[in-house]
């Protein structure tokens, strides 16, 4: 059991939980994550270690409520607890030894980019952070990142900082030259767009991928992604990869695998339905609709 020590709502969707996990707090490195299972019937879901306090023995999880599991997590109050936390998992970020790094964070990715910026700053790398949100209230981790270097805030509606996507600001910084590496974490389209900007310039770009995971130990292969045409398991080979070589289309497509199930889970949670295992009511794999129709025997020559 891991007690929730503090809870803070960072924006309407994103909540920070500080939870007890002394061993992980001591040894975690930038880029690493944990696998969390809130209660006995919960999913195992991966969450980045956004910050850690080795003295208090706590780690910070910054969670965007998108579906059932994350909504239940952000509803936890201090004094309540998370059943299981395993980690730290994944390879630590490859931090450049010196020079100038740009850290790009979109949405909750801003929290994920924070430990990377911390790590870079600690070894003396100059850090510029470019972070974005829909409007002013959605911007998170600005203050924390300001402690580590310059911060450029972008909002879609221009209500705060620059108007427009983070990629516009990144374009300007890159045009100024002298950027040794870009670390980008956010929605798949954002990471794809960042990679498209830096690729022609040959600027090293590292992205943090968020495929669906279960065990986080390389045992199931569910988190596989294609990088440079090769199959990689993001939980053990990543989660960070060379942004110029990632197959973003495939990643985004695989993330949609359980969409119908996710909606069903939310609907059940909201209507408090206590459905038993009514397997027949469940959405089938979507391919079924095309494949199941020819229920005639297999085509054998």
């Amino acid at each position, binding site marked *: 059991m891991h007690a929730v020590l503090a809870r803070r709502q960072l924006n309407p969707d994103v909540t920070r939980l500080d939870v007890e996990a002394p061993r992980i707090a001591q040894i975690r490195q930038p880029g690493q994550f944990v696998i969390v299972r809130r209660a006995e019937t919960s999913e195992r879901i991966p969450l980045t270690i956004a910050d850690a306090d080795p003295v208090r023995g706590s780690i910070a999880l910054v969670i965007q409520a998108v579906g059932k599991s994350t909504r239940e997590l952000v509803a936890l109050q201090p004094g309540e607890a998370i059943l299981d936390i395993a980690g730290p998992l994944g390879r630590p970020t490859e931090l450049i030894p010196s020079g100038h790094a740009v850290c790009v964070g979109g949405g909750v990715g801003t929290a994920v980019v924070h430990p990377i910026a911390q790590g870079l700053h600690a070894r003396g790398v100059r850090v510029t952070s470019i972070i974005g949100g829909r409007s002013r209230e959605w911007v998170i981790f600005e203050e924390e990142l300001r402690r580590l270097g310059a911060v450029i805030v972008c909002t879609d509606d221009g209500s705060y900082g620059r108007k427009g996507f983070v990629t516009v600001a990144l374009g300007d910084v890159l045009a100024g030259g002298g950027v040794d590496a870009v670390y980008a974490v956010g929605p798949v389209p954002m990471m794809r767009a960042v990679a498209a900007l830096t690729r022609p310039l040959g600027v090293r770009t590292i992205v943090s991928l968020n495929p669906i995971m279960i065990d986080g130990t390389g045992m199931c292969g569910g988190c596989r992604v294609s990088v440079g045409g090769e*199959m990689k398991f993001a939980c053990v080979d990543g989660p960070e990869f060379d942004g110029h070589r990632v197959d973003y289309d495939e990643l985004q497509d695989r993330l949609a695998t359980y969409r119908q199930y996710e909606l069903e889970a939310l609907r059940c949670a909201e209507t408090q339905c206590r*459905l038993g295992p009514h397997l027949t009511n469940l959405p089938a794999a979507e*391919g079924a609709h095309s494949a199941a129709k020819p229920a005639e025997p297999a085509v054998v020559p």
Partner: protein
Amino acid sequence: MSGKLSTRERLSIPRQRIPEQPPEARASNFAEVNLGFTEQLALLEAQRCLQCKDPKCVRGCPVGVNIPRFLQLLTEGKVAEAAQSLLCDNALPAVTGRVCPQETQCEAECVRAAKGEPVAIGYLERYVADWARTHAERLPIEKAPPTGKRIAIVGSGPSGLTAAGELARRGHEVTIYEALHKPGGVLVYGIPEFRLPKKIVEQEVERLRRLGVRIECNVVIGRTWTLPELRARFDAVYIANGAGLPLFLNIPGENLKGVYSANEYLTRVNLMAAWQFPRNDTPVLHGQRVAVIGGGNVALDAVRTARRLGAQEAMIVYRRTKAEMPARAEEIHHAEDEGVRFHFLTAPVEILGNEKRWVTGLKCIRMEPGAPDETGRARPVPVPGSEFVLPCDIVVVAIGTRANPLLTSTCPELKLNRWGNIVVDENGMTSLPGVFAGGDIVRGAATVILAMGDGKRAAQAIDAWLRGELKPAEAQTPAPTG
């Protein structure tokens, strides 16, 4: 009842059938298929044993269970003594009685197999073990006084659990580190409920806890602690982290939606209870037509799971013939009864998908048996031009697993063979003094009983090592068995 039956009388008893759930019913539920012998059936079956002077069956068992002894005690009505005898040879008989490939081990060697059917050793082992589970109070646990020595075990599969029990009984302080949230290894995440109820594994784990074994879940060695850190904190370490790295086929279409490794498919359903979605939060795709590639126990577990999840058509696609399937005979037979279809001499070449990247079919090619390969089996050769498409919406790849490098890659001093398995000497010691290893991480994917045998042998070696009676030998490369 008595052990005084004549050989002729014993020979006249036919092999007893184990009651099982009817196929129509069980194909849609997750309850155990075999219901187990009644007392009457068990006694009758035990009397079929001829109590051979030179019992060949024992030689067929990788851990040498004294089969005639526990069967004799059973026929004498001394079931507690039978259980004691069995447990002394085999720490998890309720598991092995259910999952050992008896037909190639103990039962294959039984003299009665030569003329008719062997004694049903597996079912009897299961009967006695189930009695022991439900009468724990009648089986006192003996434990040596504390030695003050501390041992870390990595992994809580059958190998780790066996070693833990053995070491705790000798008075050592044992801590098991398990990466997942539940102990049991493949017994909880891989082998399905309908073959091995999870309650049995829980009871075994409970028994170890009562012996004083500590189990820390959610600890990934290589990440949470490194091997050198464990070595520094403990007097000895036993590595039993299994062979949990799924192999894929390297054919086009493997990243379409609807393609699973067997490990993922089974983990979702068993460990995460996805069959109870939405009561449990973890989903699994329900296919109408599910193709499972492979011919071992893992493939059969996956295909029978698909059937239970409602697949109208659950198929095995195997590149060799039925006779060459490595799965247990009983599982093949059960799968057939449950309506699983088998496509033998068939190899997949591509997974097909629609424009939304969902699986729609498996393109296969016919095979024919060719010249024998290094395993002595006919090497399957493709028949040119014989490609065809099996329509399906889920594909499960069950072609085997390798050593997972998560732990070993963080400790380069640990000697590995070229498949990534840990190299050990005849005592189970690795190239690092005081660090032992066994089970699938050493052998490659093997069996529960072999993993347990390694755990037991390693425990004895660790005990000797801690008393200073064992010196590190030059680590040798064992022949791979996987």
